């Protein structure tokens, strides 16, 4: 016999008893100690953390598929993943309270998969970043807001902190955090938060062939700062071709440090910053701006941001002797 609200509803008479209690045994509540247990406190703390960080986690609608997430870094600025921005105008950001705002791209850096959006109204709640960097083993929540139904979260631990690494998009990431949280669809651009609800970094699945990694907050916020000011990240340029070579023990003595490898300069671009600065073919590049360089990736990582346009000391081994040449780093 169908009922009006459940069209497929079927029932039979029950075989025993004369009552069908709805919630019998609710006295069970008394058996359970409803005062807070350790687990309940822990559970509440997690939900509080999600709620707290959720106030700064916004919905970013800038592609045809399911919307992605973003983090408010200022009342009018949203940090998100570059790969979720698939159009240049009519970008929509929805705040946690449901307010729809239009936004424009303030700056984007495909290399590190970060983008900054400027809102047409300064009404977002900026996120609080962590004071202590992420540690392997610590509990974390990955948050996202791909729908207007509310904040979404998954729990995990920090599995590894690695870097530097060349990203799948041609950039260089000094450091990244890997976690065992589940990255639901639309979580790119959302924050990774600690148990206290402060932001440890920004999640993206655009850098490592679809698996989600986290860009640490200090790196992401620094990039965001530059993006908000300049619209893009300056990539430095030396103009050398090089290959990794071993540094002999004698040469290491003149370097005054243990360093197994350096970069042998095998070619110089004409009129490049390196040739103007006095670098020569045959030099072994061993350090830049006080940091040792053992591999190409390390040089690549150093050649970005503030260093561009500045006269920078470069350590080279020339004939086994240490020399320092100053090169004005060019911009690509």
């Amino acid at each position: 016999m169908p009922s009006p609200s459940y069209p497929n509803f079927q029932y039979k008479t029950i075989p025993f008893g004369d009552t069908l209690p709805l919630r019998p045994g609710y006295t069970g509540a008394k058996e359970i100690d409803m005062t807070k247990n350790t687990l309940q406190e822990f559970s509440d703390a997690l939900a509080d953390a999600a709620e707290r960080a959720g106030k700064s986690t916004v919905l970013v609608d800038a592609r045809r598929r399911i919307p992605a997430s973003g983090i408010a870094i200022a009342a009018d600025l949203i940090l998100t993943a570059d790969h979720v921005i698939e159009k240049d105008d009519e970008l929509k950001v929805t705040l946690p309270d449901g307010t729809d705002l239009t936004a424009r791209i303030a700056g984007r850096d495909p290399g590190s998969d970060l983008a900054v959006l400027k809102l047409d109204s300064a009404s977002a709640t900026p996120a609080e970043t962590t004071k202590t960097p992420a540690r392997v083993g610590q509990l974390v929540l990955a948050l996202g807001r791909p729908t207007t139904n509310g904040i979404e979260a998954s729990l995990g631990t920090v599995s590894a902190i690695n870097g530097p690494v060349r990203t799948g998009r041609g950039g260089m990431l000094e450091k990244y955090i890997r976690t065992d949280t589940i990255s639901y669809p639309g979580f790119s651009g959302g924050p990774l938060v600690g148990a206290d609800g402060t932001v440890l970094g920004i999640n993206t699945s655009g850098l490592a062939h679809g698996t989600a990694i986290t860009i640490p907050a200090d790196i992401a916020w620094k990039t965001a700062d530059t993006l908000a000011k300049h619209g893009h990240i300056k990539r430095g340029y030396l103009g050398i071709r090089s290959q990794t070579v071993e540094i002999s023990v004698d040469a290491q003595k003149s370097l005054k440090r243990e360093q197994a490898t350096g970069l042998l300069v095998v070619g110089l671009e004409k009129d490049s910053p390196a040739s103007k600065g006095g670098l020569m073919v045959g030099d072994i590049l061993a350090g830049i701006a006080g940091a040792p360089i053992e591999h190409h990736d390390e040089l690549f990582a150093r050649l970005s941001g503030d260093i561009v346009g500045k006269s920078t000391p470069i350590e080279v081994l020339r004939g086994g002797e240490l020399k320092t040449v100053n090169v004005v780093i060019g911009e690509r």
Partner: protein
Amino acid sequence: MNFNGTFTSVINDLVQRVMPSLVIVRGAGAGMIWSADGLILTNNHVVGRRSPIVILNDDREFESKLIARNPDMDLALLSIYATNLTPLVPAPAAPRVGEMVFAFGHPWGERNVVTRGIVSAVLLAQARNGERFPVIRSDATLAPGNSGGPLVNANGEVIGINAMIMGGDQSLAISISVARDFVSKVRAENKVELKRPISEGVI
């Protein structure tokens, strides 16, 4: 926090408390004891065409009667001829995103497995008849065999019925509020019949 002491012992207590309310619905899944006198709540898709055998946590087996089913919300209510069962307590409040959950069931037929997670999202699902009802997505690991089993909070109160298990992070639980409405509807529609004393067995 003493990780070896309080925290794990609280989880152990919780599992000990919930486990007696977990049943096997023979065939495909799990179920939970809803009332002390034999009401079992499970998923509609677990029940199949015939009333299944229900096996309690203490290994007692019962033939069940199908009292009501709702394919739209994937819920079914069974009854077994038993008393003094331990029912689960429904959570009094709506779940919060981030709160801890424990899923109980028999994934891949392995009995009495507990998995841990948090509430990932509270969503609205649409039934085939167009009706919208709340479902809970959690990051607890579930597999076929968890269907019909309870999802409980840190207090051991049931917040949902695990359903729509596709494995991994694709799983959803039907909010306990939906189940409550379902059972109260069954009760309202059965009112007339229920007032008649019914004897089972001897005719």
